[in-house]
């Protein structure tokens, strides 16, 4: 009897599994189709507006193309002109590099410090909002506000203060003087860019387990600064990397603040940036091949620096 029962239930389960595996494979098939359907809108748009454009940019950078006639292959000529003969591009490159290597690290370090301190304060959210607010404002709107501060006459707040303190006699034309344009753009940009990294860092800091600090205290780590160096920073590598990549992309893409402070072209190209050069050649002169070469340079710089920071903040070790 017992044996008989066993056999029968065995048969039944066998039957059941073949049925359910058939159903499962149907389900699996259905899920695969849904997977592709769900992914399709993003992939299609991403391909049309990101992947293909990057490839086309590379291709066009080796051509002469004005959008009216079809592109003509000219090899590396664009790059040769760009790096050897185009003095204005070299100014733009220099300006962008100076800008990026000062504002990028400065904004990055200040936003980390701020996140680290604010994380230990009461009313964290209020401080966070105060600190983050500038970065969600519009570069154009804020340049207008900052230009009240840097206004070139006596009405400008900064000129007014400097004159009253006796540092200067005549008001400084901040946005027309070649020497002061880039520093003004940098101040406004640092002011605006601190917030993006800040949020990432603040969130990362909140995620570091308190117990680790306790354990560290037992191991003899005394001050907060030691805590920061030996525990917090190593744990936050992924956030530090994300913040670094954002900072690189942001600082090399400088354009709108420079344009609204100094105009395009700026006096003696003092605030000319890579993106401004790209805009000039692509959308004012419609020399798309040459402009693509500019964009390939921009791509190469940010990509290499992105890779470097991936090395630097690698979590594997």
């Amino acid at each position, binding site marked *: 009897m017992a044996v008989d029962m066993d056999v029968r239930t065995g048969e039944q389960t066998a039957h059941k599994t073949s049925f359910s595996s058939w159903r499962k494979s149907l389900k699996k098939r259905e899920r*695969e189709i*849904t*997977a592709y359907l*769900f*992914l399709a*809108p*993003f992939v299609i748009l991403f391909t049309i*507006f*990101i992947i293909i*454009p*990057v490839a*086309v940019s590379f291709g066009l950078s080796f051509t002469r193309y004005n*959008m009216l006639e079809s592109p003509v292959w000219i090899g590396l000529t664009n790059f040769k002109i760009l790096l050897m003969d185009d003095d204005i591009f070299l100014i733009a490159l220099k300006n962008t590099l100076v800008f990026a290597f000062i504002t990028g690290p400065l904004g990055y370090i200040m936003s980390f*410090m*701020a996140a680290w*301190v604010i994380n230990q304060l009461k009313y964290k*959210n209020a401080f*966070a*909002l105060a*600190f983050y*607010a500038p970065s969600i*404002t*519009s*570069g*154009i*709107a*804020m340049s207008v*506000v900052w230009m009240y501060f840097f206004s070139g006459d*006596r*009405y400008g*707040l900064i000129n*007014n203060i400097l004159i009253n303190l006796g540092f200067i006699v005549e008001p400084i034309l901040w946005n027309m003087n070649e020497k002061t344009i880039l520093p003004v753009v940098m101040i406004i940009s640092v*002011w605006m860019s601190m917030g993006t990294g800040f*949020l*990432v860092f*603040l*969130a990362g800091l*909140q995620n570091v387990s*308190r117990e680790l*600090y306790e354990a560290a205290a037992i191991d003899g780590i005394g*001050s907060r*600064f030691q805590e920061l160096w030996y525990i917090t920073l190593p744990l936050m590598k*992924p956030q*530090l990397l*994300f913040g670094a*990549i954002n900072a690189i*992309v942001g600082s090399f893409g400088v*354009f709108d603040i420079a344009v609204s402070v100094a105009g395009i072209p700026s006096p003696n190209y003092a605030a000319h940036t890579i*993106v401004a050069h*790209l805009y000039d050649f*692509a*959308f004012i002169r419609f020399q798309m091949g040459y*402009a693509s070469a500019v*964009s*390939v340079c*921009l*791509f190469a710089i*940010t990509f290499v620096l*992105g890779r470097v920071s*991936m090395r630097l903040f690698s979590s594997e070790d």
Partner: protein
Amino acid sequence: MTKNKVLKQTEIRKKRKSIKLSWGWFFTYSFMIGLVAFTALPLIYMVSTAFKPIDELFIYPPRFLVRKPTLTNFSNLLTALSSSEVPFTRYILNSVVTAVTTVVLTVIVSAMGAFSLVKYRPKGSDAMFKIILAALMFSPHVTQIPTYMVVNSLGMINRYSALIIPKIAVAYNFFLMKQFIEQMPDVLMEAARIDGANEWYLFWKIVMPSLKPAWATLVVFSFVANWNDYFSPLIFITSQAMKTLPLALQTIAGGLSIARAGAVGAATFLMTLPTIIIFTLMQARVMETMVHSGIKA
């Protein structure tokens, strides 16, 4: 978390709050006060200027705060400027329509895509994620020239769609969504599947509600980015009536004519307000999402 653990944690927290006075802390705090002044003063000045009556705008020596606040600047902005070709309200409409549509579409498209990538893992998903990580590393300006050709050939120049469609599939948004979905448990989904729910229903009724912090974050970031975007309208929009607020503001502010100084103040204020409000409303959820934003390389 057990009660004991919670108690212990609050105890530790209390201990950490009592900060020892030392030179290190003195400098840290002075630095912070300086930093907060640096971030807040321009914003305070902006708000104050928006409400300044005309005589206070041109007073010498310049004054930081408003004495007798008034709304004249706003009414000037909305009425006096309407006598010109395009009323200011039209720019507001353009900005609202394009920013809101882009936000809604990017949230849905990124959520669906990231959900599929993480939970179904279709073939090629690893390669795709690598491409998206790489795309985080270059500025959007790099793709503008070919994008311009596409937009131009589709006849989208001077249309809302030029400001919307190219900006739906953004690597940054997809990345944040994906990071958040990765730590979402499968239990709820499995339970719903056993109850016979199909995948479409599952996505809208189970997945989307539990992704609320992630899409709230995308709402904030995407709205801020599109509302403030200057480059796309600059190249895709040539008709005055289709311009968005950043371009319009630049036109009004250009030359800084004396009669318009007050209106410009009001315009910068109006332009900044929505982003601050949206961020304040979503702040807690944004923080919840950003915890997962790190890149493990």
